[in-house]
């Protein structure tokens, strides 16, 4: 049973993609996750779908600086405009929110149901960009959220350096991700998928994380200290 089909079943025909994803997220997160999958390897299909829902939820509880995506919505992955603070999830019709995946894509067709479609909660179209394995010169800064899979452990410093100081919410699933400058790291604790946060890194990138995310984090690194 794939993410999309599970989403369909859980949503009971509510019809809107965002809603489906969120409801699915709650359902699966509450049900728990397969133990022993902290590194992402050997994840069952259901666990992958939960992880995909988490990425989506992070978009809902983070705020990007204003202007970081100005002018982007109409042109897709255009250059960032001047700095300023605004909510990246623009209310403008036709805007888009981008989730980038670097490394081996573990999600399969988990995003198939929502990808490329307008999401009411985000107020924009949700775009999934699969970069594949990292290569030098890759433009990662166009993403709102960049998920670095466990397979990119070796390239992690380069990837983080590529988006350093830019308003890109970096999410990883490898041990030491936060220490290397990542912002949110997913991990399994007590058979449930949880997260830890490098608040200083997010702050440096001018990304504001909801206090509830911080409160529920397994660990929060403030001022560069874990």
């Amino acid at each position, binding site marked *: 049973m794939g993410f999309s089909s599970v989403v369909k079943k859980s949503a009971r025909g509510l019809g809107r993609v965002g809603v489906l994803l969120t*409801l699915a997220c*709650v359902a699966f997160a509450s049900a728990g996750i397969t133990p022993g999958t902290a590194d992402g390897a050997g994840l069952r299909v259901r666990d992958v779908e939960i992880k995909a829902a988490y990425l989506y939820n992070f978009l809902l509880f983070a705020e990007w600086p204003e202007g970081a995506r100005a002018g982007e919505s109409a042109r897709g992955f255009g250059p960032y405009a001047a700095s300023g603070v605004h909510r990246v999830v623009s209310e403008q019709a036709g805007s888009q929110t981008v989730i980038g995946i670097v490394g081996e894509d573990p999600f399969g067709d988990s995003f198939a149901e929502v990808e490329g479609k307008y999401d*009411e909660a985000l107020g924009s179209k949700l775009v999934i960009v699969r970069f594949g394995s990292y290569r030098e010169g890759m433009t990662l800064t166009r993403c709102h959220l960049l998920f670095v899979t466990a397979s990119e452990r070796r390239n992690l410093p380069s990837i983080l350096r590529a988006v350093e100081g830019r308003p890109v919410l970096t999410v990883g699933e490898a041990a030491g991700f936060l220490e290397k400058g990542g912002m949110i790291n997913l991990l399994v604790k007590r058979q449930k998928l949880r997260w830890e946060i490098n608040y200083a890194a997010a702050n440096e990138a001018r990304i504001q994380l909801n206090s*509830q*995310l911080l409160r529920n984090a397994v660990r929060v690194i403030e001022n560069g200290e874990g």
Partner: protein
Amino acid sequence: MNGEERRPAGNEPDQGFSLRDRILGDKLTIRRKLMAIMLVTSTLTVFIASSAFIAFSWFARRQALERDLASLAPAIGNTCEVALQFGIPDDAERILATVEARPAIVLACIYDADGQLFAAHDPESRAAIALPLEAGPDVDVHDHVNGVLRLTHPVHLKTRRIGTVYLEADMREIRAALGRDSLILGGVALLALVGSYLLSSRFQGLISGPILGLAATAQTISEVEDHSIRAEMTAGGEMATLVQAFNGMLDAIEVRDSALVAGEKRYQTLFDTAEVSLWEQDISEVRQTMQELSAQGVSDLRRYLEEHPEFVARAAGQVRVVDVNSATVQLFDGASKDDLLGSLDSLFIPESLPVIREKLIAIAVGRRSFAAEAVHQTLTGRRIVALLSMALPREDETQHAIVSMMDITERKATEEELDRHRNHLTELVEKRTVELRKMVNLMAGREVRMAELKEVTKKLRAQLEEAGMTPVADDPLRVSIEPS
């Protein structure tokens, strides 16, 4: 009609002992009435104020509880967004546990978007698996069931509903608070009533003192019948006005009393010294007898009285002579007034009955005056005829009638003598008239016979002339036979 009879029906004392009777009736002194009025008023005021306060407190506390829940629910919902989105019930339960600071809240739950229980703070184990009260799409819903306030608040993330906060609060705390308020109010009310009693017992004298002074003065005046006594001015304001009015009334009474005494004296002098016979008669008993007779359905009084002379005699005997003057004593051959006071029975003779009947009718129909020629006998049995004039009182006046009698016995005798002479003359005239009429008739007969004789003569003359005889002119029976 005495004072008791004039008392309105509503003020008649009854056997009940209602509060109104106790306060306003005759059982309490004015001091106690004033204190009772003040205490009852104070008690009622305190009771109404306390009741209003308790009622207001109840509604205010209930509304405050509703407001508290209505403000708490969104705060819980906003704080649980991540818990709901990421499926972390532990976090939601930690947040819900903060309601422990509010003892009134007995249940706090979060239900997920499907209406299934997600997290709860449930010390009394009363949480339902499914959402018991559906929230509106965007607004809170609350109700009261069995003394429990229930409220649901939809939790939205952006425009999407992700769950529901459900709170239950009972009224135990409010009831306990109201109980405490009631005790405090009761204590305050008791203190207020004690204070009211002490103050009223002291201040009632401001009103009752002058009134009691007035009452004592009035009592003294009534007992000694001295209208020169005046009430003392012991207070100001309305009480001073009351005392002034009372004294002014006494002044007026004194003046009128003097005028009354003078009038009474003048009346008595006139009454006693009048040349005409004057009587003061009490007709209350006979008036009542006549009213009873009317009440029995007797409509033709005159006929009834004519047919029942014994009733007339009995009714006449009910007229009581209260006073007579010296002219009356003299007229009726008495030695003193006492001979004539009391009943009139001894003065009546059968000839008196017609006038007595008319007098009774006059009393019965409510006439104000009556006059007639009455025939009485004096105490010595002498028959007298008097011109009686009677002034009758109204039913609502003192039932004393003033009667005057003018002796016309001699005048009546003279009139009767004159009548006799007149009758004799009339008889003589009538006799002479008859005789005269006879003479006239006789004369008339002669003329008729003369006319008949002339006619016969005329006829004879005619026969003689036919026979050729010419009667002598002067004597129709003489004829001259002329040779033919």
